[in-house]
């Protein structure tokens, strides 16, 4: 996610997250920002659909979305909160305000309320991903 966010500078980067039945995040789909903007994002609809299909083919489900704030703080913006339509998705924000120390945080956004979910990076054996 951070690599994608850095690659997309100065525009916001975005993508989707897929989880398995146990709720473990298994894939970050790095998608195109249809708005090509440094201050907003919209997932490319076709890529969104392809990610959905791929995740389901792997036995996963879409479980979240990530995007970057190239110049802003890591907390979800009012725009993020207003446009968060999936109460069961984890909303991950990567702040690149400090290029040398990106900050990544996860949030639940439900009914306009933001609650942080601590993220834990787990290294697992076998990184093979079905094609």
């Amino acid at each position, binding site marked *: 996610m951070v690599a994608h966010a850095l690659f997309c500078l*100065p525009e*916001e980067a*975005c993508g*989707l997250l897929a989880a398995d039945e146990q709720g473990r995040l298994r894939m970050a789909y790095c998608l195109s920002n249809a*708005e090509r*903007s*440094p*201050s*907003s*994002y*919209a*997932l490319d*609809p*076709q890529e*969104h*659909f392809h990610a*959905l*299909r791929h995740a389901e083919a792997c036995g996963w489900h879409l479980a979240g*979305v990530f*995007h970057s*704030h*190239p*110049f*802003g*703080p890591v907390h*979800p*913006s009012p*725009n*993020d909160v*207003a*446009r*968060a*339509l*999936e*109460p*069961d998705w984890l*909303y991950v924000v990567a702040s690149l305000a400090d290029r040398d120390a990106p900050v990544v945080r996860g949030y639940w956004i439900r009914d306009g309320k933001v609650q942080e979910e601590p993220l834990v990076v787990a290294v697992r054996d076998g990184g093979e991903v079905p094609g």
Partner: protein
Amino acid sequence: MSVQVRIPTVLRPQVGGQAVLVAEGATVGEVLGFIEASHPGFGAVVLEANGTLKRFLNVFLNDEDVRYRQGLDTPVPEDSTLVILPAVAGGSFPATMQTA
């Protein structure tokens, strides 16, 4: 034509909480009209007043975005799958870009 329709979370309150519906219709527009007939109010959520698809929704018929076909007039083959996906968007707006 019978078609399976996948309903996104944000629209499920309009269809009694169902994630998947079976509907009928010869075109995408007719399928949406079929759902409106059994779930009044659904149409107002997915369609603009002028009858076009709302901008924040994307509809895929058998893996193709109907906006790149014939929109709501796209023919629906038998046993099709219609997937309604809300646009996923947000961002740091208003911009806080630094000039350094």
